[in-house]
């Protein structure tokens, strides 16, 4: 051992001998944390979880409780009743609004995914250089203000908006086209435009993952481009299609800005109605009930959709 030390000091002459290494000192809590990884992990997560609990879990519980209360003048009657839920079930206005919201979101979702698929396909298979540039270019507008993008569509579709004024100044039409603004179609167009990035990304990822040799194999086995697309590419990209549908359908059902700015009375959705309950009508328990019912519908549709696609995929496979 002294010999070994001697050798060591030869290449580092000024080092103190190892005996003077800092003595080991650790507290009991430090030891516990050192030994228990799970505890350390959750300790690190705790601030995030605290915020999420305050911001999501507790509000949801209160929202749920509130939905069983009723309004009494400016106060709440805190006895738990199913009154609000009964009203939602019995009065046709609620059902109609819910159905319209789900319908508009559904059509917007299908439109968006259908329009975005070729674009994602193009970037995945036909762009060779600067793929990242293309992706950034496509997703960039998504990050800008949602309000401003919807506002832009109001400018375009408005009674004296871009399309109408352009068509009039070209002399193609006499009077402005009224159906452009304040209609379901206006809402659907705007939603499809605003949520395109949410569709492009999952579609692109699922297409990019497809092993190119599978496509070559399909060609080799006699499939033309169309048959190859429907027999190989599309089935393999289904996870992306499903993800895209979820990512658009769920948030858009509760959208507020687009129907508020562009929907008019015909394009009003459940989100606007919820806002009205919390705002002008001042019936918070009803608003809470509608929020809960909306959540339940979203869950139910999502589950059915998942179930159907899984069955369909099993059939194919």
């Amino acid at each position, binding site marked *: 051992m002294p010999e070994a030390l001697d050798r060591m000091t030869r290449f580092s002459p000024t080092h103190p001998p190892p005996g003077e290494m800092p003595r080991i000192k650790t507290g009991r809590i430090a030891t516990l944390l050192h030994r228990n*990884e*799970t505890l*350390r*992990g*959750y300790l*690190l*997560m705790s*601030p*995030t979880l605290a915020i*999420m609990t305050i*911001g*999501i879990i*507790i*509000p*949801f519980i209160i*929202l749920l409780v*509130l939905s069983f209360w009723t309004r009494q003048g400016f106060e709440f009657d805190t006895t738990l009743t199913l009154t609000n839920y009964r009203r939602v079930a019995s009065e046709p206005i609620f059902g109609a609004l819910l159905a319209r919201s789900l319908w508009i979101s559904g059509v917007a979702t299908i439109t968006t995914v259908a329009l975005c698929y*070729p*674009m994602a*396909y*193009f970037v995945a298979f*036909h762009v*060779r250089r600067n793929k990242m540039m293309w992706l*950034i*270019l*496509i997703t*960039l507008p998504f*990050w*800008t*203000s949602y*309000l*401003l*993008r919807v*506002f*832009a569509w109001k*400018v*375009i579709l408005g009674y*004296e*908006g871009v399309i*109408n004024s352009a068509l009039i100044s070209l002399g193609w039409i006499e009077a402005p086209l009224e159906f452009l603004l304040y209609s379901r179609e206006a809402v659907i167009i705007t939603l499809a*435009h605003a949520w395109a990035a949410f569709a492009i990304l999952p579609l692109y990822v699922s297409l990019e993952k497809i092993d190119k040799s599978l*496509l*070559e194999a399909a*060609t080799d086995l006699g499939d033309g481009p169309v048959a190859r697309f429907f027999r190989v590419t599309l089935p393999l990209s289904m996870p992306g299609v499903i993800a895209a549908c979820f990512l658009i359908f*769920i*948030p*858009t059902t*509760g*959208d*507020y800005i687009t129907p508020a*700015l562009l929907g008019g009375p015909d394009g009003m959705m459940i*989100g606007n109605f*919820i*806002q009205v309950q*919390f705002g002008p009508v001042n019936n918070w328990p009803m608003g*809470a009930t509608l*929020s809960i019912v*909306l*959540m339940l519908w*979203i869950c139910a549709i999502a589950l059915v959709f998942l179930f159907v696609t899984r069955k369909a995929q099993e059939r194919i496979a």
Partner: protein
Amino acid sequence: MKATSHLQRPNRSLQVYAAVFLVVLYLPVLLIPLFAFNDSIYVRFPLRGFTTQWFVELWNRQPAWNAFWNSIRVGLTVAVISTVLGIVAAKAITRYRMPGRTALVTFIMMPLVIPGIIFGVALLVLLSRMGVPLSLYTVTLGHLIVCLPFAVATLLPRFEGFDRSMEEASADLGENGWWTFWRVTFPMVFPGVVASLLLTFTISFDEFIMAFFLTGTDPTLPIYIWSQLRFPQQFPSILALASLVLFFSIPLIFIAIWVGRLGVSQSSEGTAES
């Protein structure tokens, strides 16, 4: 570079589609600055002529400035807090054997897909039951919920991308957790941190629905814009304001995405090499 394969033959109709797609994607947004410089109170064709009067009018409008500074303050606070929380959460998720990790990640990502209005009203109900008055602080809390998933989603790949043995090497060389974080982890995830700060700031700056329910007397910029949309005579100066917001937020977002991705691809190259 691979030679052009049979499958990658240029497809003319697809190219045209992609071009049209991009034009349609950007056109609405580009119309805003176009009409902001149009010398007419009406937003319609034909264009009347070039003017900067709407910007001058905007410059002199005190409430717009107040709303702007409110948004800046909320945005900076939200960006810093959500990025710090994102770093901590990403580190915990990637570094420790935690039971229920998948459930945790799903939970954090939930606000990405649940309609914002539901979070908005739920928080509103909680705050009013607790007797908390609505203010910029309540807006900040709402924005935190919206921004946290983005911060975590931006930072997670950075933490997953670098080899855990780097931190072990630091511990092995005598540094405790704190110093290891500052000397190894932080420099290596730094591009992700920058990306997260920029993204969360812009999201908060542009966020509407949470602010709509949670704002007190001090409006944020989107709320101010919303309140002015009712008055047609304000339209051109709102267009000017919107142009400015777009003008500054698009480069910010571009840098954020670029920096964020750049780092990830670099680090994965680095590990592939070793």
